[in-house]
Structure formats: structure tokens, C-alpha cells
């Protein structure tokens, strides 16, 4: 496998009326081509913002720290995302090397332009196809994602399609430029389970066929277990656990990951009471010092957790966790 992207020390702050808030704090990860990484966390944990940073797609009040390094390894050389400025330079990655699928397909298509015109437009921006060829490719892609009668759908508007169909069209559009990296931001959350299963299968097939890397953002650990190769768990802007999907789901190490898994209603045993993680995710304006999870953590070690930021410790090869429970053990 070849390395696709390296993200190092991504730190991102937003200027708001209430002050500067930290949305992403020192996040590092990497992704190989053909690999699917699940990015999990509650709402407000910074997963979408992290993914959008890879394309510098955040609002203008965003400030990236100087240490932030995002390197994209393409066939014709490396691209340092942080050095790109202005929409002209960013065009290389936005919609070109990196595509994104959003959660709500109805809100991501322009309502007054046909699906087809939107697909053709982006192909003409990012490739040197002429209009006729772009139309052929678009219809081919619509067919590829399992939309029946693609030539008719090509001429329709987003509102004429059902939810599952719209999400398929979104995927077709995102993949038609043959991106190297696909960011899927909660692509199945708004869909029914039966349609979700179809979309997940489709995405698995497409990874095999196109060999791209996928960052799959979701709060549903079941979806992650079925799609991802590795998982990164985020809480309040920090990565707290990272590793291969089997490892993390079978042997979750961070108390937060354990809590997330315990809170899931399981169908195997209906008698197990649901155990929520106590409390709510704190506001980003009141980020706890030390370990960000210490205010809700059942395994809180006291002073150490509330003052010192835990570093990553490797529990098993490739499985890293940022928690003092494990740094303690490592010290002994």
C-alpha cells in the first residue's frame, strides 16, 4: 500500500463572539490508498471540522496553527495543503484529489439545476473532458452506483429523487472525478437502515474498484465495524484512541470508547440495561484542562487527569490510546 495523506499536529481554532475556541487540538493521523478510516465521536467532537481541514474548507474565521502539516501524496508529487491559498490553488484538491459526500444530500445539491448539469460542471472544471464526454461519464457513474434509468435521472432535479437515490447521485458525483481521497461525512445517517445497508455495500465495492482512501465520519459504531479498516475516536477536538477496527471495537481501551460501546443498544442481549456516559459534552468554551474527558470519566485518577494532557500509549501494536490509566502502567 502507498501512503495517501499525512496529517500532523492539526490544530484549528475559530474566532467567535465569545472568544477564540479550539475545535481541533493537535490531531495526527495518516491514511493509505485503499484504506477506510472511521472517524467517530459525539456531535461537537470536531470530526467534521477535522475532515474539512484536509481541503481547507472551514469558514474564514478559522485559524490553523503553524505546526499544522497536511501532506497529500499524489502521483505527480506531494501537495502541502496548508501552503495552498485562494480558490484557484485549492481547486487541485477540492473536488479534484479529494471529494466529499455530505450528510444531507438534499441540502448539497443545488435545487434549481439538474443533477446532470451539476455533474457535468464539476467534470469540466477538474478534467479536460468536453461537454459530450462529461455527460457520458456522468451517466456511466449514475449507472455504476445503481441508479436505474440513469439517462432520465441525469435530466432531473434533486427534489425528484428519493433520499437513497439522492445519496447515490451524490456518491456518483463525488467519484466521477476519480478522487484519491473521499471524505464521507455521515453519509448514511439520514437514511433508513435498509437503504443504509445498500449504500454501505456500494461504498465497499467502490473502494475495491477505485482503490481510493476513505475517511468515514459517523457516530454509529456499527457502521464503522462494517466498513472501516481502522478507527480514530475523537472527543472535544482531540484524538483519544486510534487503531485497527477489530482491536478498538473488541478491546476498547479509553474509558470514553468503552462508554460509547456500552451505550449502544445491543440486539444480542435485551436484558442488559443501557448505560449512558454521565453528563454532557462540555462546551468548547469551557474545555477542561488536562484530559478533556476527565469531567465525565468514571476512571478519573484525580489531579493528574485534570492537569496533565495524556500522551498516546501503544497498548497493542498499532492500537494507541491517550489516557493516564495506560501511561501509569507504562511507567511501572
Amino acid at each position, binding site marked *: 500500500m502507498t501512503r495517501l495523506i499525512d496529517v500532523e499536529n492539526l490544530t484549528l481554532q475559530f474566532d467567535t463572539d465569545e472568544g477564540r475556541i479550539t475545535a481541533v487540538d493537535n490531531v495526527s493521523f495518516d491514511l493509505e490508498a485503499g484504506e477506510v478510516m472511521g472517524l467517530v465521536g*459525539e*456531535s461537537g467532537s470536531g470530526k467534521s471540522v477535522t475532515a474539512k481541514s484536509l481541503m481547507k474548507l472551514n469558514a474564514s474565521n478559522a485559524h490553523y496553527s503553524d505546526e499544522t502539516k497536511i501532506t497529500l501524496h499524489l502521483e505527480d508529487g506531494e501537495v502541502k495543503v496548508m501552503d495552498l491559498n485562494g480558490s484557484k490553488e485549492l481547486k487541485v484538491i477540492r473536488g479534484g484529489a479529494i471529494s466529499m459526500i455530505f450528510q444531507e444530500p438534499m441540502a448539497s445539491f443545488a435545487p434549481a439545476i439538474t443533477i446532470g448539469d451539476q455533474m457535468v460542471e464539476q467534470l469540466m472544471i477538474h478534467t479536460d473532458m468536453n461537454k459530450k464526454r462529461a455527460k457520458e461519464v456522468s451517466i456511466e457513474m449514475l449507472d455504476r452506483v445503481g441508479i436505474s434509468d440513469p439517462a432520465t435521472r441525469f435530466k432531473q432535479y434533486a427534489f425528484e429523487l*428519493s*433520499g*437513497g*437515490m439522492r445519496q447515490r447521485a451524490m456518491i456518483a458525483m463525488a467519484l466521477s472525478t476519480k478522487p484519491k481521497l473521499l471524505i464521507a461525512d455521515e453519509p448514511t445517517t439520514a437514511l*433508513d*437502515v*435498509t*437503504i*443504509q*445497508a*445498500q449504500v*454501505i*455495500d456500494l461504498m465497499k465495492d467502490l473502494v475495491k474498484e477505485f482503490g481510493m482512501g476513505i475517511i468515514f465520519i459517523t*457516530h*454509529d*459504531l*456499527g*457502521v464503522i*465495524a*462494517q466498513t472501516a479498516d481502522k478507527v480514530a475516536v475523537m472527543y472535544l477536538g482531540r484524538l483519544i484512541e486510534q487503531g485497527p*477496527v*477489530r482491536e478498538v*471495537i473488541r478491546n476498547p481501551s479509553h474509558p470514553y470508547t468503552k*462508554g*460509547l*460501546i456500552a*451505550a*449502544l*443498544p*445491543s*440486539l444480542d442481549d*435485551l436484558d442488559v*440495561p*443501557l*448505560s*449512558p*456516559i454521565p453528563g*454532557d*459534552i462540555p462546551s468548547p468554551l469551557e474545555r477542561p484542562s488536562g484530559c478533556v474527558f476527565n469531567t465525565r470519566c468514571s476512571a478519573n485518577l484525580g489531579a493528574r487527569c485534570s492537569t496533565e494532557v495524556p500522551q498516546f500509549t501503544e497498548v497493542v501494536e498499532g492500537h494507541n490510546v491517550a489516557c493516564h490509566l495506560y501511561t501509569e502502567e507504562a511507567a511501572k
Partner: protein
Amino acid sequence: MSDDILIKARDLSVHFQISGGKVFGPKPVVKAVEGVNLDIAKGSFFGLVGESGSGKTTLGRACLKAAPITRGSVTYTDEEVNYELTSVDKEQLKDYRKRSQLIFQDPYAALSPRMTVRDIIAEPLEVMGLTSSREETDERVREIAAKCRLNLEHLRRFPHAFSGGQRQRISIARALVSKPHFVVADESVAALDVSIQADVLNLLKEIQQEMGLTFLFISHDLSVVAHVCDHVAVMYLGRLVETAPTRDLFAAPRHPYTKALLSAIPSLDPDDPKVAQKLEGEIPSPTNPPPGCKFQTRCPFATDICRKDEPKLEHSSTEHVVACHHWQDLMD
């Protein structure tokens, strides 16, 4: 239990006229709910599941007389009153509004941003004239707030200061302050994170047992329903296709649609060998439902009879009811 039915629906149908069709021809009709028989026992936690467009919300609202009932009847019976919802007069309807309540899906849209939490919770009491003095109102508000784990400090604030889970607890408090007997919870946890979802579900369960409430719990998430409900009904395109006690339904689903729904839930085990019985296609449009069994267009077992005749509900055991021509052939 069987003679202790709180809500009894017989041949309940809700049709909506929609615009479109020929200029002088009849207006097309959407049969959102068609010929539903439903018994909700007193003190039960009754689950209603189905994909979007299956008519579950409309059925829930018809039980509250918040949707027009086209045909059939809904009877509400508690210790004091007995209402036939199709023929209640104004006074009786007013009284029924006190006895039945609705909890909405989106806690961000359901609360007025201009009212304090105290005013939001007190409003039903004031509107219905249930309390005679401000002291009494405050007393009732404080009592229900404590039950929903909101403290006095919370009551003075506005909804924007709260997280999703807390807002949902406020909506629950508002729904329960008039001491209803029957509560419809429409996708009440769908917008929440898993950790918060578990918390709200536990709260609903606790309050139900404490206040002896009857819940109609509408959800598209089968694993949630499995955990909180004691009885489940599955809807497809306006019809009930299967009803059973929860354990029965999950251990031995009879209808192919229920089976497909269950197998579409993504498993937490990445190596789950489960051959998911994937459904092709999507739920047909309710303006143009297929003839015969409504599920025949997606059913892998459909035969000629399914395309001609609509199956009747049959008892597969005393409490387990299924509407499928082939349920006996499909037993494993």
C-alpha cells in the same frame, strides 16, 4: 391484560388529498394509514417501527386526534372516561388533550427560543387551566423538572443554553407536566448521540414505571425499540405487517420485511458472518402503491398470489400477528 386496552384502533385509515393529477379529474389521494387494527395495553411501552414514508407518524397522530381520521375508529378508555375519537365533542376533545401528549423528534425545533424553561414547562398547565395559582404551577413545574433531572437553576435559563439531551429532557417534562395517561414519543431519541440516547431512554422507562404511563414509541431504530418496548408493531406503506411482543418478534420474526429490517442493522462485530438479507430498491410512493401485498415489489419471496391479493393479518401464535401469504413456508 387483554381487556385492559387504553387505545383501540379498528380499521383506522388516514387519507390525504394532494395537489396534482388531472385538472378536472379526481385529486390523487395518499393513503398514509390504511385499515390498521391496533391495541395498546394500559401501562405498556408500545413500539412502532418502519422506514420513512411508512405512515408511523401519521398513525401516532391519529391516535391523538391530531391527524384527520378518514375511516374506522380509535377508542380511548381509562379509569374515568371512554372516548371515541371520531365523535368526541369540543369539551371531550379538550379533556382528551390533557390525557394524551406528544414528544417531538427535534428538541431544537420543539422549544420556543424566547421562553424560559420554566415558562415552557408551565405553559400546558396554564393553557389547560390545570392549576389555580402561580404557586401551584411552580410547584408542579418543579416536581416534574426534578423527575426529568433538571435543577432549579435550569428553569431560569433559555433553551439555547442547553445541549440536545437536556433539551429533550425539557420536552419530556413539558409533555408530562399535565399528568397525561397516554404519550406518543415520535422519534424522540433519533436526533441524539448514542451516549445521550441511552440516558433519555432510561429516563423515559423510569418515568413510565413511576407514573404508570402508556407510551406509543415511534422509531426507525430497531435496536432502540428492542431495548425499551414490550410490544412492537411493524409498519410498511400504511399497513401493519407484523405485531408481537418484543422478545417474540426479535427471536422469531415472521414477515420477510421484519427479517430484512433486522438483518440490515449493522453489527458491531466486524467479522459478523451474517449474510444480510439485503432489500433491493426503496419503499414505493404511497400515491401509487403496488397491488396485492404492498411489500411484493421488494420481497424476495413474492409469488403470483402476492401480486394479486393483499394478505390479511393472521395469528402465528396468540400474541404474534403477521400479514404475509407465505409466513408459514418461510419458517426455519
